[in-house]
């Protein structure tokens, strides 16, 4: 039977349930400032650009597969640490996408060097560093806009 009390209860509960749902949704999509996350991005930028420099042609440089493996593993570990830190917190989709984008870029650089077994040419490396630097700057800008 549709008593007045039941109608009242339906009218009251419905908006509350809606508000709770909206609150849960917002909490799940939260984007909040985090100094450690920002610092991780800045540190990764420095490491990634130094890696490109290290594998760009230069006087006295000779190709060494082992050196590439060692150096790429070091930077890879930094990415893993940054991703693990993010995994310990409430999921932030934008930040996760930003780090995944940068990590993917680093993996492509490593793969290209492993395949070519030769140093980057200077002009190419300068252009590449511009793009990588811009990518990190946009990710950092994303942090600052939060």
């Amino acid at each position, binding site marked *: 039977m549709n008593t007045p009390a039941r109608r009242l209860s339906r009218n009251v509960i419905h908006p509350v349930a809606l508000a709770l749902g909206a609150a849960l949704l917002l909490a799940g999509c939260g984007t909040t400032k985090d100094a450690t996350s920002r610092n991780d991005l800045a540190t990764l930028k420095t490491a990634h650009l130094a890696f490109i420099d290290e594998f760009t042609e230069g006087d006295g440089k000779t190709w060494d597969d082992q050196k590439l493996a060692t150096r790429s593993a070091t930077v890879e570990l930094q990415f893993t640490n940054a991703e693990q830190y993010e995994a310990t917190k409430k999921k932030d989709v934008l930040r996760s996408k930003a780090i995944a984008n940068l990590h993917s870029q680093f993996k492509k650089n490593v793969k290209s060097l492993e395949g070519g077994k030769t140093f980057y040419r200077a002009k*190419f490396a300068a*252009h590449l560093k511009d*793009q990588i630097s811009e*990518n990190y700057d*946009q990710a950092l800008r*994303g942090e600052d806009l939060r």
Partner: protein
Amino acid sequence: MASAFDGVLDGIKDESVKAAKDQLQSLLQQAKADSSAFAQKNAAALEEWIVELRNGDLNQQEFNELADAQRAAAEQFVNTQAIAGQARARELTLTVIDIAVKKVVPVLIAAI
């Protein structure tokens, strides 16, 4: 005065890519006139690499790697834009790169 980039595009005589060339030139002009410094820089870099590819200062693999890196940076840029501006940001960056890489540059390389 025609730029080095215009000269490279003019050198592509294949009629099958005329529409793509026109679209690329139009979008690059819009990007260079846009208020976004990122879109301006993106367009200028792409033009520079295409000229360098034509002149042999970059090889095809290097060009492709740069385009990939530029695409990644552009995706990062688009993700930082407000929803309302994302479509335009995408058109002036990612669409420009795609037209250059998928339609115009293959014909340029074949003609070198």
